[in-house]
């Protein structure tokens, strides 16, 4: 929560301090923890979905985006990384069976 944002008063929060909005942690951007950034090489990727399976932060999104590789292989979907939440742990880089994910240093 940003510091300048006004915090709710005691009578504005739900009873018991419960959180009524499911899954609102998505508003927290854990992407700034990252030192190395995984980048998918769409041409090498065989769409086995192992990165999507193993990712602890569910940052891999399966998008309906056709892709034709340089060898002429056609895929009906692609994988995209949500860099707002990716913590850069590198599990996907390690587990990719065809080394299609590059691990590059973040430079700002």
């Amino acid at each position: 929560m940003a510091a300048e944002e006004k915090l709710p008063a005691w009578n504005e929060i739900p009873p018991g301090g419960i959180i009524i909005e499911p899954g609102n942690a998505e508003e927290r951007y854990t992407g700034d923890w990252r030192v190395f950034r995984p980048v998918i090489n769409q041409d090498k990727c065989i769409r086995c979905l192992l990165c999507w399976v193993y990712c602890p932060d569910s940052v891999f999104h399966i998008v309906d985006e056709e892709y034709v590789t340089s060898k002429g292989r056609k895929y009906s979907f692609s994988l995209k990384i949500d860099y707002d939440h990716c913590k850069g742990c590198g599990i996907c880089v390690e587990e990719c069976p065809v080394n299609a994910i590059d691990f590059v240093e973040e430079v700002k």
Partner: protein
Amino acid sequence: MSSQAQKKKKRYFKLINQIPRQELFSPGHGLCAGCTAGTIVRHLLKAAGPNTIVVNATGCVEVSTTTYPYTSWRVPWLHLAFENAAAAASGVETAIKVLQRKGVIDPNKKINIVVLGGDGGTYDIGFQALSGMLERGHNVMYVLYDNEAYMNTGIQRSGSTPLFAWTTTTPAGKVWRGERRPKKPIAEIVAAHRVPYVATTNPAYPLDMLNKFKRGLIVEGPTFVHVLQPCPTGWRFDPRYGIKIARLATETGMWVNWELDHGEFDVTVPVPRRKHVKHYLRMQGRFKHLTEEEIEEIQKWVDQEVERINKMVGRQVIGPVEE
């Protein structure tokens, strides 16, 4: 295992394509980078679906997924202390049963109740509540994610810490060589309660893990799934090797993926040729003080365990050491 039982054995998910796409565990949680607990919880909720109530004992997952005012959970979620998660889940299950009888909730609606506890909250502190829940026979699945120490409070030993592992309370020096006792066989202790379903699994085998979660939810009565969860912070390894270490645990025989379904014992991930434990131990900083003799001692302990498992199955599911 009889051929009839083999036929009865169900595989709910056979391909990675069949894994549900719905994410009920949102990103943005505060688990360490590379913490495989995220993988485990994601798949748990994929197997369970939206009609689920999660009862969470104190632990890493609890503190890091619900930092006020944010929550990662898209299902009803209840936070409890270390010692009473199973007891509270019993109450939740009974309350739902009563509400269904009175017609407040549709009696045909299947509501899954899942307890998620860490090894501290299960092996040590929450054990009496778990034992009581199993004894009373509540229709609850207990999922234990086991990172082999109290990682949340700063790597203190728990009943789950393996032999010779370094933790802050079992230091490695001249007198103490890390933890002095082998791991407590919690899943077998649970199986001794004669519950219908007990399984051990590990996130490196996602389909095995999902099938066990699903089976645990479908079986009536108390069920227990024990999941190994490599912890980059406490086990002292590079975050990227989390899944690799989990896989090595099974490949070396340190961890056996088995299930006990209504008295039928089987190993679901057979290892025809097993690797030497040094491959598993040398990847982790918590074992870096080990001498060759100590590694051999662990290997001897693993050999005994493997022999016992093979005897239980009745055939050689886990083979001899390679090289």
